[in-house]
């Protein structure tokens, strides 16, 4: 064993990314492709009454302008196509930014200009786009993918009424957008009834099946390619309608067509985190033991689907509480479909972890101690003991590193110059998914190892970690391994969403690599030309690309030599069951709030996470620093604004939809890990993790602001005007 898993190995795709050699889906995958550009609805609700494409068609370079009159009839796929309808199949307008036409031209400039020449007339109705304006009362939507929206345990209402201490509060979060740096891009190339898509997707195989459904094609007629992805954060998890429209255009024109969404179009075309309200009621004993937890949430739904992504899992699962009532309600609005955005559960978790902080102040109890007193080793819904849960250790590690014991108990007690200093914390939790996957490993006569699996690297480090796994399993150096991912021509793997990649691919990759190793060892010991001939296979060790007899280390062979003599590459596959689960952690934050101007800086953060085995400390740390800064964005600035009169997004850009810049990231950040392999893991002891380190950050910041100033802000984002 070379023991690379667990080491902070540098990214194997690093060189490609720092030299510009990495080819992303928009990087001219099909030279000579035509350029598509979408014309989208100006209005939020109504109907297209007329489209005049003549001016656009007359524009130089324009090849076609297609509308609902030209589109083939497509079948609306189910999840992961969350939109509920496909635009340009009829004239109904469900939201601003809905595609109404596609212009295809020789150059992107021509397509964009011609798109402005398409004259669309609408019959319009006044839209309702924010929760405050909803026409109907909030309602309980039917289960989403078999997951109910109401959960009850014990008798929460009675327990609350009888509680010694009660806390009740309302929290809100605005709509927010993923904003990966790479816009959505798709290039469609047809060969008869076979379609190749170069696609910005977090799941090539999912896109393949969705598109095949939409076009009523055999699944294997569709190939989806995405070797690199310039960020997804959930925005590229679902398949979206622009991919279908562009593919339809390419089919009609019998020419490859490339379509890249503009930044503004990304605010109406590719999902978002829904606007959200939450009412939380907590009942507790004076000793701080939770006796009742009631959470009612309202999410902004669209008029074409009713999936709730901002779920309340942490309320149900994180703390020991016998009486629970969770309702996940929604209101239907004339907005584009929401979807999942990096840690959808964080929205509701903000309310829970803020309410707990409020309970702590009500009880005059340290918030860490409060959480310890409500810690559970049991799954609250199944009653089963967790096989591996080290959350208490996370509290220990992070509170010590942060210096939490020095915390002053009174709000507003620490001032440094012009700033109040406050400390806050929150527990973190996230459920990770796991999906069926298959990996294939091939050893060539040159000793090179090729790993093939149709997974993705959305920046989380998949290329690197699966290479580490192969290196360890086979005893080969990293540099002989070539990982091929992001292509449906490769064995099936799941979506890189729900923090599922590690949990989905590690086991199959390991099994494939071990099978390939065993096959090569088997060939060696059966080959009389090998120095290892007739050695029992279990006495052969593999290391640095060599096969070594453990009892006589002079007797050795190499992968390359064995396979070379065999005359053909050795290939093995691996698959197997994968299990979802939970990852935990805690975040401590220090904020500084200007005493007179109310501006907030997050100056120091310490986290500790229990994610099972840490596969690669570098990439794991990357998820933490990214997650913390995402949490800062959500806590302090991110906010999609809908105009209540028109339904249009007022800030569909990166200068007024603010995401954190370098100067917003905390200058001090320590990311600690328990690093105990989870015996129940099907992924070499690891658990999914990418989303966990955001979940508690907004609450930790809000709690720290309260500690700094005595001001409790329950409505995100906490901009300085709320602290004047």
């Amino acid at each position: 064993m070379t023991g690379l898993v667990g080491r902070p190995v540098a990214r194997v795709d690093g060189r490609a990314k720092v030299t510009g050699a990495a080819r992303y889906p928009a990087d001219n995958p099909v030279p000579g492709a035509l350029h598509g550009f979408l014309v989208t609805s100006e209005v939020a609700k109504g109907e297209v009454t007329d489209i005049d494409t003549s001016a656009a068609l007359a524009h130089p370079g324009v090849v076609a302008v297609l509308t609902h009159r030209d589109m083939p009839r497509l079948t609306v796929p189910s999840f992961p196509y969350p939109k509920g309808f496909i635009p340009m199949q009829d004239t109904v307008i469900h939201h601003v930014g809905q595609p109404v036409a596609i212009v295809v031209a020789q150059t992107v400039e021509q397509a964009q200009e011609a798109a402005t020449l398409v004259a669309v007339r609408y019959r319009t109705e006044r839209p309702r786009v924010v929760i405050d304006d909803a026409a109907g009362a909030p309602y309980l939507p039917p289960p989403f993918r078999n997951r109910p929206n109401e959960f009850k345990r014990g008798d929460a209402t009675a327990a609350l009424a009888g509680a010694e201490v009660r806390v009740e509060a309302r929290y809100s979060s605005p709509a927010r957008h993923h904003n990966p740096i790479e816009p959505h891009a798709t290039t469609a190339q047809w060969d008869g009834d076979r379609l190749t898509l170069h696609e910005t997707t977090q799941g090539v195989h999912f896109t393949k099946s969705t598109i095949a459904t939409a076009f009523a094609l055999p699944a294997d007629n569709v190939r989806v390619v995405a070797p690199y992805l310039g960020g997804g954060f959930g925005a590229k998890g679902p398949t979206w309608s622009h991919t279908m429209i562009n593919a339809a255009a390419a089919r009609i024109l019998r020419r490859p067509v490339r379509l890249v969404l503009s930044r503004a179009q990304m605010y109406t075309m590719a999902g978002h985190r829904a606007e959200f309200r939450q009412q939380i009621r907590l009942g507790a004993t004076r000793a701080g033991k939770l006796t009742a937890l009631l959470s009612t949430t309202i999410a902004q739904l669209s008029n074409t689907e009713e999936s709730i992504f901002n779920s309340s899992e942490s309320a149900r699962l994180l703390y020991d509480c016998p009486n629970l009532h969770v309702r996940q309600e929604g209101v239907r609005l004339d907005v584009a479909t929401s979807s999942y955005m990096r840690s959808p559960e964080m929205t509701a978790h903000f309310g829970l972890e803020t309410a707990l902080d409020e309970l702590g102040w009500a009880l005059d109890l340290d918030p860490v101690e409060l959480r310890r007193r409500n810690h559970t080793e049991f799954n609250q819904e199944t009653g089963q003991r967790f096989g591996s849960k080290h959350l208490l250790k996370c509290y220990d590690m992070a509170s010590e590193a942060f210096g939490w014991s020095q915390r002053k108990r009174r709000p507003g007690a620490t001032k440094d110059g012009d700033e109040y200093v406050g400390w806050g914390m929150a527990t973190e939790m996230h459920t990770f998914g796991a999906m069926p996957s298959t990996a294939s490993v091939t050893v060539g006569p040159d000793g090179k190892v090729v790993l093939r699996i149709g997974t993705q690297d959305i920046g989380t480090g998949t290329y690197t970690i699966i290479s580490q796994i192969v290196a360890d399993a086979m005893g080969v150096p990293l540099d002989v391994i070539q990982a091929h991912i992001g292509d449906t021509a490769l064995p099936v793997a799941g979506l890189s969403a729900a923090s599922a990649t590690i949990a989905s691919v590690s086991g199959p990759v390991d099994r494939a690599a071990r099978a390939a190793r065993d096959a090569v060892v088997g060939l060696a010991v059966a080959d009389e030309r090998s120095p290892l001939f007739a050695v029992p296979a279990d006495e052969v060790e593999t290391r640095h690309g060599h096969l070594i007899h453990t009892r006589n280390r002079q007797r050795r062979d190499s992968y390359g030599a064995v396979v070379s003599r065999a005359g053909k590459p050795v290939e093995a596959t691996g698959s197997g069951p994968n299990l979802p689960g939970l990852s935990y952690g805690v975040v401590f934050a220090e904020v500084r709030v200007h005493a007179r101007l109310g501006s907030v800086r997050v100056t120091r953060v310490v986290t500790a996470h229990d994610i099972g085995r840490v596969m690669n400390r570098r990439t794991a740390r990357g998820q933490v620093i990214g997650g913390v800064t995402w949490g800062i964005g959500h806590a302090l600035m991110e906010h999609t604004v809908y105009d209540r009169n028109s339904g249009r997004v007022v800030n569909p850009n990166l200068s007024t939809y603010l995401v954190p810049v370098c100067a917003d990231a905390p200058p001090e950040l320590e990311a600690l890990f328990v690093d105990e392999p989870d015996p129940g893991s099907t992924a070499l002891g690891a658990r999914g993790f990418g989303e966990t380190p955001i979940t508690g950050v907004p609450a930790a910041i809000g709690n720290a602001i309260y500690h700094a100033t005595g001001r409790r802000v329950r409505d995100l984002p906490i901009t300085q005007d709320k602290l004047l």
Partner: protein
Amino acid sequence: MRSFGYASARDSADAVRLADRTPGAAFIAGGTDLLNLMKDGVQHHRHLVDVNKLDLARVTESASGLRIGGLARMRQVAEHHAVRARFPVLAEALLASASPQVRNMATIGGNLLQRTRCGYFRDIGSACNKRVPGSGCSALQGWNRGHAVLGGSESCIATHPSDLAVALTALDASVHVLGPGGTRRIPVGEFYRLPGDTPQIETSLRPAELITAVEVPRHPTATRSRYLKLRDRATFEFAVVSVAAALDLRGHFVRDIRLAFGGIGTKPWRSAEAEAELRGKNLTVERVEQAGRVLVRGAVPRQDNEFKVELVQRALAELVLGLGGLR
């Protein structure tokens, strides 16, 4: 972006001549705002006259003050020793603007002519009197957190986004232009216009006039001048509220003071009334607070921007008391 013709001018006279005789022409220098406006369909020009080759990029200091060429880049001005030493509010305002990359590109003239960041102005799907006169103002009943509380009309409440213009307004700068009718010098206070019922007319520039220079007079207040910019993220954002203050102090006695504000007015906002509360008096917390109250006396806050009335007073106090050594 709609297509357009392009010509590169040899010198200022050539540029003005090209712009004057070519219908629908506009100058392009840095391009950092113009191209966005054209990409978004907010503006269209049938012809662009590239003025980057013109010899208008020099920054010079003389006994009378500073002369900044219209094509000097933001970074170049911010780094200029005379600017940093004797007009620090200019350097601070410039460094608080945009990003390092844009500061390498954008010119002083272009900075003064950048257009509002009002989301409705920049969205051709929304009604906007500034973009399409008579179409209505979406901001009045819409999202107006970033909008003006001073100087607005029922036609428009958009703010001017330039930090530099706020600093220049405090320093009594003037704008030199060359046009078909020759040269003119326009005090910056007259350069920008209130929206009234013609919000589409933003400056007193005439067709085909080119900003050749900005002149900043030497003044006792200029050396003790500072810029404070408040915003929702640490940097790389337009101002929520900003203050430029220039102070001539003897001890705590205010011999002279100039105050200008960004983010609160429909143009870079100078307040002679607020200055009068402080000029010729000893600087105290109470007087600064009174100046703040005077500043916002005519404020008309809207649904989402009422906080600016309070925030700008606090920002004023923060900056002036800091400059005066009282904080």
